[in-house]
């Protein structure tokens, strides 16, 4: 694909049908266009048939718009929102297991954990498992500092984001109507 000079991390929020194959179809759309998904979080919503997904992708603005348009075209996709950094709140959850043998090391880890407001969720004779939430930078910073101990394992949920203000992904817009028109003139 063509080189994108202004590529930056973009966040998209989607509402989709909770059915087999839908996640794969969405993931495929990104890979077909040559975009790597940096983070992907899919979870249930208050409506049992609907899954909400947050996707982080590296792309410039025009290509992101194109991606949004292609996503909106898919049948199982109900709505797509392109979130802006200024207007949204980002959070991620991280589990991190570090090696900590002896009380001295363990105390050091616990102290660092406190700085990042991480909780100790599991303790074994030689390891500590921490959980922390925050935006990407905070979690990256924490992982970085903890790397002075041996990090055994990290699991991150991927970023989830929600818009500030009363606006939601469900808001009607002319554009959304236009997309649905093309899909569903039965």
């Amino acid at each position, binding site marked *: 694909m063509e080189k994108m000079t202004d590529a930056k991390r973009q966040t998209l929020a989607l509402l989709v049908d909770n059915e087999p194959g839908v996640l794969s179809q969405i*993931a495929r759309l990104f890979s077909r266009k040559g975009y790597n998904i940096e983070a992907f979080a899919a979870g249930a919503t208050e409506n049992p048939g609907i899954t909400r997904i947050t996707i982080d992708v590296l792309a410039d603005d025009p290509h992101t718009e194109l991606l949004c348009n292609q996503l909106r075209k898919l049948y199982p996709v109900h709505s797509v929102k392109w979130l802006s950094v200024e207007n949204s709140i980002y959070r991620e959850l991280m589990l991190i297991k570090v090696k900590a043998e002896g009380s001295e090391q363990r105390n050091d880890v616990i102290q660092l954990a406190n700085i990042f407001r991480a909780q100790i969720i599991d303790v074994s004779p030689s390891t500590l498992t921490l959980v922390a939430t925050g935006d990407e930078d905070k979690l990256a910073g924490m992982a970085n500092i903890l790397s002075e101990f041996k990090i055994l394992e990290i699991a991150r949920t991927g970023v989830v984001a929600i818009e500030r203000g009363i606006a939601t992904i469900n808001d009607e817009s002319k554009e959304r109507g236009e997309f649905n028109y093309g899909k569903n003139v039965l």
Partner: protein
Amino acid sequence: MKGIFSVLVENRDGVLSAVSGLFARRGFNIDTLAVGETDDHEISSMTITSTGDQRTIDQIEKQLNKNVDVIKVRRLTEARSVCLEMILTKVSYSATTRSSLIETCQMCGAKIIKAAPKYMLLEFHADPEAVEDFIQLVRPYGIIEIQRTGTIAMEK
């Protein structure tokens, strides 16, 4: 039964669709899917939860192992792992319900990220069941929007 897979994969395009396609192929719904970076930028970790019978889950594990982009697959059981999920949710409130909403949050340990005149933005993380309970607790106030991360898990 519930299958929880913790999968380490190459961080490149097409991998996510290949992995999720394995599930789709068997008509198998993915309940949650969380993809995040690890400490190595070249490698992503995925946590996938799904419901199905034992044999299908076994088969999926095998197929996952076969995929060239999959570095490592681990099946986790709820009993022997730490399973966590986070939600962000916007909940509306009125003057009469405000204090009880705040109380509910304090009781569950949810963080109020932002309190605006008509709604509060809450962050909450716990094991998936507790997250479900929390949603039931705040539902009466009026959920405007909700986003769950999907489960991530780590062996104890």
